[in-house]
């Protein structure tokens, strides 16, 4: 059993990083994730870690330094959010293409403009196709646990793909919650030592990273990279199960909450999943067959498992915390609806956008979504495919 503590989500993550004690962290502070590199600097100053903390001049440099350190053979992490992730995005693609297992913590936040520092998934969705594994977390316990698991997932020889561990800015990063911190020794045992596959610093075996690939070569490299990414779901499952055996908290690629016999389901990621689960419980008490699918692994997207989990539901609402501007629906909607296309009795799927720039999404809002799903199931009339939760003014497509 771990030790019960009451600390903020950012502090929870910082403790996970302290226990992992990576070789190198290159980071540039940005709200709402700044507490993490600040805490790491304190841990180093207090002699609790011996990580090389590189204080770079921008997030572009942060990820660049991470790529160099990881290619050299180190265990490497970084932390960012919002504009910071956007600025580093050029190198985000390079990290995954070079198959460097860099674990990056993100306190997800809205992108400017207007300037906003609050929770939102716009930043992480911008890089959803960059070839990284993306794990969304609901609360402090999950961000702590997932940070530790991400090291094992990304460093697996068949996977060798970087991971983004994502919490909601402020909702999780800045709220004090009760969670269990495991012993340093046991965490270190769980993650084990890292043996890099192609360390640049091994002068006995000289190699080149990042060579040029003309049209006659490039396609094969991208297919090879994709193959690596697609080895990760089984590792996410296995590491989640092993973590459960070691520490008593199991993790999978998603959490199916009261879905088995559900007629109506919400699909959601991040901190709002907790609020929605309370609503599911309340509806169940009144005999409403409500359920919820909390996606943990959004990339790679586990389409087959989603089909199985949602195949028997009558009406599904996907709740996205981002606008995929001009697309036919938001990222979760697109994935879920596309996955369900092959299901014989496929459910109706509608799309909601919620919580942009930290807008509060309350139990009554989730209740209204389930009410709408019930109405659609009863009448068969869908109405709006896309709608917004808790905005002023009426949205007409």
């Amino acid at each position, binding site marked *: 059993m771990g030790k*019960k*503590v*009451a600390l*903020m989500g950012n502090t929870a993550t910082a403790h996970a990083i302290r226990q992992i004690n990576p070789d190198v962290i290159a980071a540039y502070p940005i709200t709402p994730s700044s507490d993490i590199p600040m805490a790491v600097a304190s841990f180093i100053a207090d002699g609790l870690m011996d990580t090389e903390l590189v204080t770079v001049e921008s997030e572009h440099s942060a990820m660049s330094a991470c790529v160099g350190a990881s290619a050299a053979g180190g265990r490497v992490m970084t932390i960012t959010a919002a504009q910071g992730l956007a600025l580093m995005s050029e190198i985000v693609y390079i990290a995954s293409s070079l198959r460097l297992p860099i674990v990056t913590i993100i306190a997800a936040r809205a992108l400017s403009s207007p300037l906003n*520092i*609050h929770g939102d998934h716009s930043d992480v969705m911008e890089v959803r196709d960059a070839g990284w594994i993306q794990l969304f977390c*609901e*609360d402090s316990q999950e961000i702590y646990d997932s940070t530790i698991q991400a090291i094992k997932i990304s460093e697996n020889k068949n996977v060798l793909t970087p991971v983004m561990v994502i919490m*909601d800015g*402020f*909702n*999780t990063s*800045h*709220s*004090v*919650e*009760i969670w269990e911190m495991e012993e340093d020794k046991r965490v270190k045992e769980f993650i084990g030592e890292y043996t890099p596959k192609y360390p640049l610093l091994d002068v006995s075996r000289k190699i080149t990273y990042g060579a040029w690939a003309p049209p006659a070569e490039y396609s094969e490299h991208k297919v090879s990279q994709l193959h690596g990414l697609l080895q990760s779901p089984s590792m996410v499952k296995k590491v989640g199960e092993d973590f459960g055996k070691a520490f008593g908290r199991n993790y999978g690629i998603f959490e199916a909450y009261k879905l088995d016999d559900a007629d109506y389901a919400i699909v959601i990621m991040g*901190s*709002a999943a*907790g*609020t929605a*689960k*309370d609503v599911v419980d309340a509806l169940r008490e009144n005999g409403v067959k409500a359920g919820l699918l909390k996606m943990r692994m959004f990339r790679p997207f586990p389409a087959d498992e989603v089909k199985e989990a949602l195949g028997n539901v009558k009406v599904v609402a996907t709740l996205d915390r981002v606008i995929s501007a001009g697309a036919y629906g938001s990222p979760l909607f697109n994935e879920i609806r596309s996955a369900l296309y092959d299901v014989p009795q496929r459910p109706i799927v509608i799309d909601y956008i919620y919580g942009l720039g930290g807008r*509060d*999404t*309350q*139990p*009554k809002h989730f209740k209204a979504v389930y009410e709408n799903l019930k109405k659609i199931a009863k009448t068969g009339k869908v109405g709006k495919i896309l709608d917004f939760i808790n905005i002023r003014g009426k949205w007409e497509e």
Partner: protein
Amino acid sequence: MKLNVRWHARAGQGAVTAAHNLAEVIAQEKGVYARAFAVYGAEKRGAAVMAFTRLSDHPIRDHSEYMEPDVVLLLDPTLVGLVNIAEGTKKGARVIVNTSLKKEDLIKQLNLKGFKVYILDANRISRDEIGRAIPNVPMLGAFFHVMNLRDKEELSQEMKELLESTGKFSDKLIQGNIKALRKGFEEVE
């Protein structure tokens, strides 16, 4: 147990810290869960702030900011009129106010009929014990007394351990804070 607590204060009065401290102290107890958070805006020292603490004997999953408070702590009475401290409050909610006024006068002045009102001169206590008018700790002491959640000695010990564990405060400051906490506990009426 399920208890919702909302803190109204001005930035710099320590409300966010106190909301966190409340969660940290209460969570020492086995089987008790807490969540503390604040609404972060563009506030500067002196601006109106709100902080929240949820306490429960079940794990707290609700991450929304919406709350129907059982207890409202008002660290600066001049906020009344600027913010609606009654918003969403449950019937018969308790309101603990930092004031030097008499209770009857305060109730009349702030129109607090319908609430169970408690008063404490937390500014004076914190000036006496810490040297600055940062009323969060005496208010925390008052809260624990009003809600009958800890006895004074238990609370003093837990708070002392909490302050020491941060490694941020001098012994003198910790002692001052514990005195302020105890006075808040004793003097709330």
